[in-house]
């Protein structure tokens, strides 16, 4: 006990900014059951004194408070059980992450683990039965508190139950990796701890949690606490016997861990340590030795807290949750003009996907236009079919589907339908002359303040606007494929774009639930510019003689979402070639055009790979035949160095040119637009910590401590 207190005191001294979550204890006269008095429960309410917009978190002060409350209850003879619940809508949202940067050495981080374990396990082995009444959000340490209690009720309205630590670069280090598999089996535990975390941090609802066995009973939200207390009485008086499922400690356990490892490999290619540490711990938890398991968690937690990957992960998490919602450099929201009707020029696949997005999110009339009625009809039909799909999946009601379909129309005659549009976006073929003429035509029809947006990925927005009467209302509005999934929206301020139009563009982006990043009108903006530079180094190395498979393997080990040649296939070689040509024209010294890529496009090949019957890829011999390669094969290290150096070089130039405000925006774009991983912090944190930034550009991109160990 005193050791624990000493650790707590030490930790409290380090952490200064904690918004402490207090453990408020109150006596409850438990309802009698069949005339049997159930006794007094000490019910602990976790509450940091703020409303639901600031969820409870656990730092050392909070753990100290919880410890004291549990001790007080355990010491009383008249208390028959301990209950833990949260303030309205929240049980607890995990550890206080803001305190982690303050931990500067490994032993401090070990202590954090020991404190959490020491406090929470009193709920298990303190001598009295305990109950967690999971009334709302329970993440990480919040869920772990509930795992330590003897029993759990869960509210049907509780959403967001999860152990997201692996997503950030940690592990559930206060008992999760041990208790979860011993409660629900390794199969489900691997799913929750590793797979959900790496799947965009997928979370469970209350009903799902009970189905997996995390909760013992699901109760309705209207009288959740009352019914939880009644249930607790029934358990304590013996009227209810809680059945737990039998855990398979044999092959199934090992199989689950193996499955988790394959999953982690497919996601991060071994580049992030967290999922693998979690799997090690889950594997070891099979022995059901609590002390050993908790001690192992302490070490793993500390190792990861002191890892660069975690610091990058926290930085990335912060970018995605905060900066993404407050785009740097965006003009005052108040300047935005209302958008109550949208026009889309083009009715091809991209334009049609945009139409679905606009109508679904903004719920305003959306008009499509194209060269002929047939194309227009096809586009509208596509949108209707997508809405029907949503209806079929139960994502919209019949009335809503009806509304959405009614809002989308198509026309060849723009005059009739575009005149009152507030926002028009063109998504036609990537050719400057064509886009200029479309804007010129539109200008004759729309109002002077109608925003004209372009989805161009590499052409100059300034050029597109140059010959207009009102160029100030032209903006770049660049989406990423697949439009329904990738959240990034590169919003481009051309030379003459005014603040009102830009504000309107940001407001529309927000309405579409995209994350807008302000970008200067420079070729290929951010993501495509960097990916093209990156890909350029790879294709050059391959042209020089490095085998394709070796090149892919060298770079995938960074943990990127896919190897470069698979990315090439996704983007499409023709598009990649076009962008490469554009970039070469703009920056001939840094961007080359691979002749082999040209040959690939001319041969109409969509990929360098071909797949066997059982799904194994190998280089397509036809592709190998048409390529002309040299005899200089770079090593994996050489290629990595080269590709990353090129990225560092380009990013430095982009920042100097003011393409975006700061390195944070580069990282945000690469995370949200290219799916680059948290453990790299997007990209600049990795370039800093590997020394490449300083080597190539003479300086780090970010100060030490911002996305790295200090």
């Amino acid at each position, binding site marked *: 006990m005193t050791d624990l207190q000493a650790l707590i005191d030490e930790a409290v001294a380090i952490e200064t900014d904690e918004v402490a979550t207090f453990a408020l204890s109150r006596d409850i*006269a438990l309802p009698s059951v069949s005339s049997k008095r159930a006794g007094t429960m000490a019910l602990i*309410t976790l*509450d940091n004194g703020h409303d639901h917009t600031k969820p409870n978190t656990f730092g050392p002060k909070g753990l100290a408070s919880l410890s004291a409350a549990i001790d007080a209850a355990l010491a009383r003879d008249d208390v028959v059980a301990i209950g833990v619940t949260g303030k309205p809508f929240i049980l607890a949202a995990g550890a206080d992450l803001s305190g982690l940067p303050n931990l500067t050495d490994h032993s401090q981080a070990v202590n954090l683990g020991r404190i959490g374990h020491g406090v929470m396990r009193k709920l298990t082995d303190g001598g009295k039965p305990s109950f967690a009444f999971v009334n709302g959000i329970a993440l990480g340490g919040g869920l772990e508190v509930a795992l330590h209690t003897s029993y759990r009720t869960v509210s049907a309205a509780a959403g967001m139950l999860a152990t997201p630590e692996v997503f950030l670069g940690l592990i559930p280090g206060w008992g999760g990796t041990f208790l979860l598999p011993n409660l629900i089996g390794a199969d489900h535990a691997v799913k929750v701890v590793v797979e959900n975390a790496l799947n965009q941090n997928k979370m469970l609802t209350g009903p799902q949690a009970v189905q997996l066995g995390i909760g013992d009973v699901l109760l309705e939200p*209207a009288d959740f606490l*009352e019914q939880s207390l009644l249930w607790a009485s029934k358990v304590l008086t013996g009227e209810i016997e809680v059945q737990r499922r039998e855990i398979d400690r044999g092959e199934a356990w090992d199989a689950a861990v193996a499955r988790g490892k394959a999953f982690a490999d497919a996601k991060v290619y071994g580049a992030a340590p967290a999922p693998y540490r979690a799997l090690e711990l889950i594997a070891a938890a099979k022995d059901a030795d609590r002390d050993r398991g908790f001690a192992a968690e302490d070490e793993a937690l500390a190792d990861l807290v002191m890892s660069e990957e975690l610091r990058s992960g926290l930085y990335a998490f912060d970018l995605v949750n905060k900066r993404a919602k407050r785009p740097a450099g965006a003009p005052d929201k108040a300047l935005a003009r209302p958008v109550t009707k949208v026009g889309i020029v083009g009715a091809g696949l991209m334009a049609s996907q945009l139409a679905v997005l606009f109508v679904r999110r903004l719920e305003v009339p959306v008009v499509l236009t194209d060269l002929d009625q047939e194309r227009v009809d096809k586009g509208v039909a596509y949108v209707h079919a997508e809405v029907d799909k949503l209806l079929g999946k139960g994502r919209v009601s019949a009335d809503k589907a009806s509304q959405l379909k009614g809002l989308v129309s198509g026309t060849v005659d723009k005059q009739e339908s575009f005149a009152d549009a507030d926002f028009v976006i063109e998504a036609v073929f990537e050719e400057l002359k064509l886009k200029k003429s479309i804007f010129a035509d539109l200008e004759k029809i729309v109002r002077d303040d109608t925003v004209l947006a372009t989805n161009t990925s590499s052409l100059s927005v300034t050029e597109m606007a140059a010959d207009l009467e009102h160029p100030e209302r032209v903006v770049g509005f660049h989406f990423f494929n697949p439009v329904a999934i990738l959240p990034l929206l590169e919003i481009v301020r051309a030379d003459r774009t005014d603040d009102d139009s830009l504000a309107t563009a940001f407001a529309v982006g927000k309405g579409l639930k995209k994350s807008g990043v302000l970008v200067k009108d420079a070729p290929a903006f951010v993501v495509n510019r960097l990916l093209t530079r990156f890909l350029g180094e790879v294709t050059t190395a391959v042209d020089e003689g490095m085998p394709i498979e070796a090149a892919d393997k060298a770079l995938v080990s960074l943990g990127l979402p896919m190897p470069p040649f698979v990315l090439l296939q996704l983007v499409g070689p023709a598009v990649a070639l076009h962008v490469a040509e554009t970039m070469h024209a703009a920056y001939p010294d840094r961007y080359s055009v691979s002749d082999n890529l040209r040959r690939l496009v001319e041969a109409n090949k969509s990929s360098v790979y071909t797949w066997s019957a059982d799904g194994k890829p190998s280089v397509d011999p036809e592709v190998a035949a048409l390529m002309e390669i040299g005899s200089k094969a770079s090593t994996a290290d050489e290629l990595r160095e080269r590709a990353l150096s090129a990225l560092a070089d380009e990013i430095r130039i982009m920042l100097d040119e003011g393409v975006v405000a700061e390195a944070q925006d580069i990282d945000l774009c690469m995370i949200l637009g290219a799916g680059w991983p948290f453990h790299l912090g997007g990209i600049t944190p990795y370039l800093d910590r590997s020394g490449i930034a300083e080597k190539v550009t003479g300086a780090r991109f970010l100060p030490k401590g911002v996305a790295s160990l200090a």
Partner: protein
Amino acid sequence: MPRQIRDVVFVDGVRTPFGKAKGQYAETRADDLVIKCIRELLRRNPSLPPEKVDEVAIAATTQIGDQGLTIGRTAALLAGLPNTTPGYAIDRMCAGAMTAVTTAASGIAFGAYDVAVAGGVEHMGRHPMGEGVDPNPRIIAEKLVDTSALVMGSTAENLHDRYPGITKQRADAFAVASQERAAKAYANDLIQPDLVPIATRSAEQGWGLATVDEPMRPGTTLEDLAGLKTPFRPHGRVTPGNAAGINDGATACVLADAQTAAELGLTVKMKLVSYGFAGVEPEVMGIGPVPATEKALRLAGLTIDDIEAFEVNEAFAVQVIAFLEHYGIADDDPRVNPYGGAIAYGHPLASSGVRLMNQLARQFEQRPEVRYGLTTMCVGLGMGGTVIWENPHYTGGDTQ
């Protein structure tokens, strides 16, 4: 052929423990109180399919904030009743729940409903009596109502004036008895079965659970009451001790057509015989129960001698005694409020009617020799309301 009237039964009733204003329910919403009562009714009567509830009639005096938004309908939705069940809000101040009952029951008798939920809620800590009122100046200009009529305690003093025989001493003695009877009823577990435990929020202390009526003061003595101030008149007779307090609470009950109740296998705790509401001079609103009872008796074809069980709301001891005196019933008659009354439990305005009914139903259960009983209450602005009930457990035979 004239329409047929159907028989209406009181299937079941529940209530929250009552609270003191700014007490256990200080951070609890009023609508949540009545929502939990409705849920408990459905739980206790599992043979009643929720979709068969044809109406939810909930009373509240001050229908704003957490007591507004057509609370009967809102509470029905939030209690988990299907959205096909309509609901409404109703107000007759202190007799809100009673009026919800009589109105819903009339609908059942008329054939418009088979099953209804009726009840009331008042969170006087958040919505004191008179919140937001704007009395018409004509009231004073035309002397339609004396200013004292707007202050309930003053009307109680006026009642003492009208009946000088009802002394402060008698009022205090009645109050002591109410507290004693309440304590005894708790000791014998006669009240607790009606109560719905309510989770109580407190930002400072954490969640708690209300299981007991907070206003009770067991062990109150005449000496305790003798020294209390008389806030409505200097050297007056009405004190906080011989009156009900300012309280929070909710009640709800299930009413049904007798045949439907039988078909669904529902319990029947009381059978509705008749009801009456009447107006009296607002300055002496406490006498309201008398003409209301006269009306109800006449409609029932009964006399007061037929009534063997009474639940009289104790807004003020003086008004209960005034009612008893009128009918020649002794202050301490054991058939009147045997389990204590509002002086002990509290009087969250619009909710009290169903509390009286719950306690009358307990009397019927404990005393099968009783055939008829009544629930009666005085109402602000000078009214009274009375409902006469018949005991379904009545075994026949003499009560005298």
